[in-house]
């Protein structure tokens, strides 16, 4: 068990290092941003050279990477080019907002998806099951940022029930949450359904139904708990994918998360913030996956016995 977790930890560190390398290459591959400012009345030749020296762009690439790494290890992600805040603080302020949004959206999506999937398994291949599943295929293709705008038209503009932008009120989370959750429902149902069907082929299910337990009871009490561990792993692995949709929806609502931050930083060429966003998102992903590993061990006693 310890050895398994240590391996996973080492893999996690490798992933974060990879993210560090990618963010470094991304920012340094195209020359230095000081040149892009140009020289002239606003920026003298001398100030230009000083800026290049100040940001270390006169050093060779490997030396800069080493410097970048050692800075990161000390928790120094640099200062935003646009404000006086440290890039680390900006990202750390945005990350919890993004995770909150993902969390409520995922919970909402599961609240809808779980009953649908269980019903679909119980009434497998019935007419209503087919209708629901076809409906889910249609929902899956709906672009979330477009859905977000449609929700704004209906609930914010026409009905005036909910705020269209994140104004700090608690109700501001409702529309972004719905826009992210609805497309997720389709994926979650398909996933849980196929997991449930797989567990249903186990011998214990046949044994139970022979002993006269109702199918409903078997699925809810015995099949569902067995289908959960792979789903926890899946959810953690797909966190990056969950984040993807959230990023764009955030920009629609001005939700102060990592997506909004990254888009703003990008349009302003705020490179330290760009770097910090990539590295810290990858680190958060690794952390969540380690937690999911522990959760799976807690959910599935067989793994503990096997001493993986």
């Amino acid at each position, binding site marked *: 068990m310890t050895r398994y977790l240590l391996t996973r930890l080492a*893999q996690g560190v*490798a*992933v*974060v290092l*990879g*993210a560090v390398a*990618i*963010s470094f290459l*991304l*920012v340094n*591959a*195209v020359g230095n941003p000081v040149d892009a400012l140009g020289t002239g009345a606003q920026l003298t030749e001398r100030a230009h050279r000083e800026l290049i020296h100040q940001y270390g762009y006169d050093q060779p690439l490997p030396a800069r990477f080493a410097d970048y790494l050692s800075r990161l290890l000390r928790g120094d992600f640099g200062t935003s080019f646009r404000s006086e805040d440290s890039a680390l603080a900006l990202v750390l302020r945005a990350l919890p907002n993004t995770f909150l949004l993902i969390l409520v959206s995922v919970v909402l999506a599961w609240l809808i998806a779980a009953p649908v999937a269980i019903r679909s398994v119980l009434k497998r291949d019935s007419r209503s099951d087919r209708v629901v599943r076809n409906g889910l*295929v*249609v929902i*899956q*293709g*709906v*672009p*979330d*940022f*477009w859905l977000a*705008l*449609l929700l*704004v*038209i209906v609930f914010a*503009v026409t009905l005036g029930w909910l705020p269209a932008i994140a104004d700090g009120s608690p109700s501001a989370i409702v529309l972004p949450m719905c826009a992210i959750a609805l*497309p997720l429902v389709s*994926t979650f149902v*398909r*996933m849980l359904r*196929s997991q449930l069907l797989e567990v249903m082929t186990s011998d214990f299910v046949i044994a139970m139904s022979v002993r006269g337990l109702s199918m409903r009871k078997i699925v809810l009490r015995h099949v569902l708990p067995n289908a959960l561990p792979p789903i926890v792993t899946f959810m953690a*692995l*797909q966190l*990056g*994918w*969950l*984040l*993807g*949709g959230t*990023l*764009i929806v955030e*920009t*629609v609502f001005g939700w102060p998360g*990592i*997506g909004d931050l*990254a*888009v703003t*930083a*990008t*349009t302003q*060429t*705020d*490179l330290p913030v*760009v770097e910090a*966003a*990539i590295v810290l*998102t*990858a680190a958060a*992903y*690794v952390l969540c996956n380690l937690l999911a590993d522990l959760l799976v061990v807690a959910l599935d006693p067989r793994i503990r016995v096997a001493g993986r």
Partner: protein
Amino acid sequence: MSVTSIRLPGRARGALSARRRRWPTSLVVGVAIVVAAAVLALLGPLLLPDPNHQDLLTAALPPLSAGHPLGTDALGRDVLAWIASSIRISALVAVSVVTVAALVGVAVGLLAGYVGGAFDALLMRLVDLQLAIPPLLLFICAASVVGRSLLVIIVLLAIPSWVPYARVVRTRVLVERERASVAAARLAGASHLGVLVRELLPATRSLVIVLASLQLGWILLWETALSFVGIGVHPPSTSFGYMIAQGRDALAQQWWVVAFPGLVLALLVLASNLIGDGLGEQLDVEVEVTDA
């Protein structure tokens, strides 16, 4: 896009093609949508106004106006013409990205599965990395540095897109290389390259076809999302995302500028999913993919 589960053909390879004569409904509907979109995209330049033509005299016309069946935006650009032109560019981007991704991914997957060892381990770490950095975050951040021409966008989108091919092909090759036919080919004097191309590559065909048709939809969504946040395809090139973003400013007055491009986009993504599912059924493989 990442693969969450794969089901491989259960029976011998040759028996697959003749098994079902009728096309599954999902495939028929999907192909019908694609054909309709293609007709619109190809006839657009002949019948519709220039999508970039602005005319404030005919600005903000509602749908079903004379000469503008889907209305015009706040600058008088024809929404239908914009959609037709966006289909062309989106299709160009999606097909290019999927082609590049499939070629690279299949080659890497074949090698990783066949050679194994350090190369394989390196590949799996790359897969971890691809999962850890949300592609959209990478695109957004990269766009700040490398600009945003059509070619740059295609290259950017291709960077994480080859990974799912490498994963499914690798898994398939790990199974296939243990077959007696592979050992027989080697004994008969076939080179490693010969085994890869003639024995292992054909076995991955249906998986790659299904994955590619599903991936087209995701690439469409990515391309549009980038253009929506203002760092993707931009005028004079047209994109659904750009028009949706433009329409956002006048959401209350001109809902059609947002609604119609999004609807067509949703239909195209739906078509990609339907064709992927239908082909999977036809070829008897199942590739469950998720991403955004």
